[in-house]
């Protein structure tokens, strides 16, 4: 089996078999962190859309390309409630080995999401 490295990680080489365009498949205007805080929250994105796709990618050993393009913004609370929360639960290594990101209009959004995955903010115990 062929190996490649992502930063300090060494993983099996996998192919991109799924593309998730947040602006089209979720909303182009993300909201707060938790569902109770309002609509389009990070928690809503995670539970209603992302977690199922992510689990499938793990089971079938492929990568999801998450397209961040065309969204009005990525508030810190949304990123924390979605990618951050999943990273807390499953670990940054697993997420980074199964996810790739693209953002045509603002590449800084990729850094923002990857930074949250690497340094997730824990939920209230």
């Amino acid at each position: 089996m062929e190996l490649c490295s992502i930063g300090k990680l060494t993983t099996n080489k996998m192919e991109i078999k799924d593309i998730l365009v947040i602006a089209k498949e979720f909303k182009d205007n993300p909201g707060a962190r938790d569902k109770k805080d309002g609509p389009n929250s990070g928690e809503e994105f995670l539970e209603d859309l992302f977690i199922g796709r992510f689990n499938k990618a793990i089971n079938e050993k492929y990568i999801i390309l998450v397209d961040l393009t065309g969204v009005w913004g990525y508030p810190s609370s949304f990123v924390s409630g979605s990618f951050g929360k999943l990273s807390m639960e499953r670990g940054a290594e697993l997420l980074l080995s199964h996810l790739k990101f693209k953002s045509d209009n603002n590449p800084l959004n990729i850094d923002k999401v990857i930074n949250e995955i690497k340094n997730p903010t824990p939920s209230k115990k």
Partner: protein
Amino acid sequence: MKRFYTKSEFKRFNAKRSKDAVKKKLNRKNKNQTQSSSFYNRPTNTPPPMVPIKAPDDFSLINNTELTIEYFNNAHYELKKKNRILFDISHIKTLTTDAIAVQIAKIKDQRFHFNSGILGNAPNDDNLKKLFLQSGFYEYVNTMGTKPVNNKKLLIHEITNNRVEPDIAKSACLLGLRHTFQNEEIFEPLYDILIEVMQNTNNHAGEMPGVYDWWLHVYNHPDSFKTSYTFLDLGVGIFESLPVKSFKRDFLELFGLRPNHDLVPKLFAGDIKSRTARPERGKGIPQVFECSQNSTFETFILISNDVYADLKTQNYKSIKTSFNGTLFYWEINNK
């Protein structure tokens, strides 16, 4: 008549009993009147006095902060005494939209008006009257006669369940971008700021999340490409919120008593986190600060409690008259 009732002993007994009953009744009446004398003494059908509250000539929170806050505090003081008030802005010489937004929020806030009567007037100056009309003020108050027509499409929104509302944030962005840049291209810093300030109100305006309403006012300046945004809540204010109070206790132990404005750089740097609150809760205001540094934002002011912060010049100062709540004001312009 029974013979018994005609006897002198019974007549004496009956007269005494009757006298005692009258005495008891009078006592009861006097007691009730003493307990709530003001209620009984107040003439019925007489409305409480109307107290005119005169706005400062420069009616602006961002430019004339202390006098404008004092004007609202004076009104609150009279309303608390159950007096009716007249918001008198007829004589004002300058006006900014942040003051209008605060006046609407105050009029609508029960914690401010105590269900006492509030009347108001409009500026005499024609230009200011036009601005006042275009601000959408009359959409939120009752008027005598027909309501003045407002052709300008503006947004003033009160969220009673005080949540983060991405659709309103997007609409507010579009309203500004269409006017300022004549297009609908995404400008992420503006959207991020709106979501973060909504989240801040939702989490921190009160002891419990989601207690206070927030207000958003967007104004397209008709003589330029400038758009003004005012976002405010009448909650406890940033420097009286739980995370900052908790941080202040630690800060006090280390450095002694310091004014609130000394904490502003730490707040913007994300160093203020509650010992008990969730760690992600320190990220919103720093993101607002980061976005505000974009050159599209011409002005960016934060007023909360006794702090006045200019985010563009990074000049932070104390104000003598405290603002009970949090107000963000910013302008975007196409230079």
